[in-house]
């Protein structure tokens, strides 16, 4: 028997030796000019700005590409020139002229001229990928984009929109990722079968931003290096690594241990756990995303106005803010997130079960009713759905949850097969039209419309409100435009089949040695150029 025991001891000893020998290569903290961010970026499917529309991609584009202008991170209602040093709007409201800065260069070394700007915008339209609609709205469609865009010398771009839109709308659209300016010569050198370099650009970089893409390995690592040809102030960081870490708790442990500088996808519980960690601080900013419940108006009960209103008196916003969305959101009741032009902070609803019951009784449903709710089986979606289920039960509404994978739920939602749907929606570009066009616009409530905005998905037939949304889009006076959206939201809160739950907060936990790190209202405004680190290795 001694032999067996010795063998076991030997085996155990060998294992321990490997363990400890291995630890000899313990990870040191990332050096001063390297920033390591733990982040889940399995949503990245393409790095071509003409195609990509995901959160992580937007952040990469915000740091590796530049647009004519961008929103001011400190004041998201203002725009600042990036490649454009000046711009003018013609008296008829349709003509725009952008003057470019002199001496601009791409990371490749190629000069950046107005011809690159014209090419990039036209290319996004011609490739006609999902984000192209942002430019299509301006009248930059495939058949007219070449005529609508022009150059006047190497440093001036002209644009003629199809209508006299609100200038703020046009300029905001041009600050979106899809309007990133790309290296025409580099792309055409990699063009295959007339694809304008699309296949190549899905995995490579052709921009002029402060960083350039060095490497992307899906669901593993994404590395940015400093662009030494950048025309602006030289970034302090030589390299930024996004490390795909899917699990929030793993991100927290790596941050505590100092293996990463920033953790990006922490849950409220993780953030609570870090509250007393002296080496860590939290940064947060309101984000352009909201959580909401949609009531499908094809359902005869949900189509009753009193039932729609009853749903809005069910939500315990205080409890929601204090628990489920603590750190990662705040209660909200409007379709425009705070920070956007025309955003309203009106919050007329609070939990009033008696009132909800009375409204149901008035609708002929004193005993409530049974209904289903589609929801993604992720957090915080599931938590919010379960909470709402309990609140609704107190008023007699018996909700059966239908949790599903994101794509499954979305497929059902886009086919209007749901009763209730709980999900989130983020602005596509930093302009009120982005959400107004989704929630308060539906001009074809038939089964096969050209687009399927959120209002259509819930079969909310609103010809009059849609006209008001169109009018707000054309309002050239910015103050009057803002007022128009406030009015739209007043009506939306009153009559819509939507229960807006919260506005998302973008939050990151970082080590204290990281300086200048700030999150913007949109992912493409999470700027890395101002970031530096004190202490650490060389």
């Amino acid at each position, binding site marked *: 028997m001694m032999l067996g025991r010795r*063998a076991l001891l030997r085996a155990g000893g060998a*294992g321990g030796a490997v363990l400890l020998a291995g630890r000899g290569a313990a*990870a040191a903290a990332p050096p001063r000019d390297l920033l390591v961010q733990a982040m889940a970026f399995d949503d990245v499917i393409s790095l071509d700005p003409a195609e990509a*529309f995901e959160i992580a991609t937007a952040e990469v584009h915000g740091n590796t590409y530049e647009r004519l202008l961008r929103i001011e991170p400190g004041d998201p209602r203002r725009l600042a020139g990036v490649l454009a040093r000046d711009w003018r709007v013609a008296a008829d409201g349709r003509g725009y002229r952008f003057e470019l800065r002199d001496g601009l260069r791409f990371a490749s070394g190629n000069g950046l001229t107005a011809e690159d700007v014209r090419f990039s915008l036209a290319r996004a339209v011609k490739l006609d990928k*999902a984000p192209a609609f942002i430019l299509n709205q301006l009248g930059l469609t495939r058949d007219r984009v070449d005529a609508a865009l022009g150059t006047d010398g190497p440093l001036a771009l002209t644009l003629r929109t199809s209508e006299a839109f609100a200038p703020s709308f046009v300029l905001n659209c041009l600050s979106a990722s899809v309007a990133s300016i790309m290296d025409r010569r580099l792309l055409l050198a990699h063009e295959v079968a007339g694809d304008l370099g699309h296949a190549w650009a899905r995995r490579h970089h052709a921009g002029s931003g402060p960083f350039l893409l060095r*490497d992307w390995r899906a669901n593993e690592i994404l590395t940015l290096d400093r662009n030494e040809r950048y025309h602006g102030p030289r970034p302090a960081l030589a390299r930024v690594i996004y490390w795909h870490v899917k699990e929030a708790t793993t991100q927290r442990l790596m941050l505590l241990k100092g293996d990463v500088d920033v953790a990006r996808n922490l849950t409220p519980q993780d953030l609570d756990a870090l509250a007393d960690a002296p080496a860590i601080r939290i940064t947060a900013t309101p984000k352009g995303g909201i959580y909401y419940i949609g009531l499908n108006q094809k359902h005869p009960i949900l189509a009753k106005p009193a039932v729609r209103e009853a749903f809005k008196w069910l939500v315990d916003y205080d409890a929601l803010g204090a628990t489920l969305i603590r750190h990662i959101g705040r209660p909200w009741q409007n379709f425009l997130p705070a920070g956007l032009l025309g955003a309203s902070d009106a919050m007329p609803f609070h939990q009033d079960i008696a009132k909800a019951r009375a409204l149901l009784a008035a609708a002929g449903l004193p005993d409530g009713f049974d209904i289903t709710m589609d929801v993604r089986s992720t957090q915080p979606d599931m938590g919010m759905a379960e909470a709402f289920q309990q609140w609704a039960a107190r008023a007699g509404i018996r909700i059966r949850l239908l949790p599903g994978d994101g*794509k499954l739920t979305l*497929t059902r939602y886009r086919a209007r097969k749901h009763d209730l749907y709980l999900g989130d929606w983020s602005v596509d570009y930093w302009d009120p039209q982005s959400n107004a066009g989704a929630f308060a616009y539906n001009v074809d409530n038939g089964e*096969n419309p050209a687009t399927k905005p959120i209002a259509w998905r819930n079969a909310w037939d609103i010809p009059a409100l849609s006209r008001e949304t169109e009018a707000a889009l054309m309002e050239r006076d910015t103050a009057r435009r803002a007022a128009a959206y406030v009015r739209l939201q007043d009506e939306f809160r009153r009559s819509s089949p939507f229960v807006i739950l919260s506005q998302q907060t973008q939050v990151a936990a970082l080590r204290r040695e990281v300086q200048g790190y700030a999150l913007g209202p949109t992912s493409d405004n999470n700027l890395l150029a101002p970031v530096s680190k004190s202490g650490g290795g060389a």
Partner: protein
Amino acid sequence: MIAALRFLGATALTLLGLLAVTFFIGRVVPVDPALAVAGDRASEAQLAAVREAMGLNRPLYVQFGRYVAAVARGDLGESILTANPVAEDIARVFPATLELATAGIVVGVLGGVPLGVWAALRRGRAVDQLVRVTGLLGYSVPIFWLGMMALVLFYVRLGWVAGPGRIDLAYYYAVPRVTGLLVVDGLLAGHLGAVRSALAHLALPALLLGYFSLAYISRMTRSFMLAELKKEYVTAARGRGVGEARVVWRHALRNAAVPLVTVVALSYAGLLEGSVLTETVFSWPGIGQYITNALQNADMNAVLGGTLVIGAVFIVFNLVADLLYRALDPRVRPQR
């Protein structure tokens, strides 16, 4: 020759069946794969164009036939999620799983076999109960929880092992990729720092996975050994005065090894499927995460390619188990 042809035919049929089941299940799930490509913001015209380009408008049997024909040419298609050829993706993620699974099975065998033997020899005594409880824990404790606890203790508190990921970032671009197995590539490059780092990252997930294998292997070893130790040849050997260690390790274990080979082979194959939860907790970019992510996003080419590889792994391991079985047991060798 005929046996080899028969094996190849059976293998091809098995893989075809596997592909067919995966393909048709993937297509009947009510998810629009075009949504994964074009995104939620796409117009109906854009979605229609994507469906056309992906061939989703064709009848299912035509889609399947075209897919199989492409696979026969070695083309597994392109992943929607990574914009890479699926074969290239699998060549990238499978070595990560192979490295982890191999380390895990080594731990499982080196720990599980001696423990199983020990428990059999001490049947009903404290040691036996301990091994049984160890096995029970291996079956009942969620690997996700255990992984987190192990990280907190050994990585954060004690600092004995490196954290999640396969290697320290400092070495990430330092070792040229040859096999994709970082320990091997580090050795080939003569980069001992990278080897140490890879081992330090491998230690905890391998021990964890190995523990779960160990639980199964020790239980089966105990059972096989108990059966062998009751047999007459063991009594006879003891009667002849053969030392106890020799009786146990040379005689009984050698015979118990015959069925044990199948257990170990299937455990190894199971680990090579990729342990999604272990890969998630330890940020290990392996095939388990790859297939799961593909499934969640209706990336059917990636799902099918991954499934094909897993199927092939099982077939190869079954074959290896059969061959070892024949080598170890003279009774099943073909008679000349």
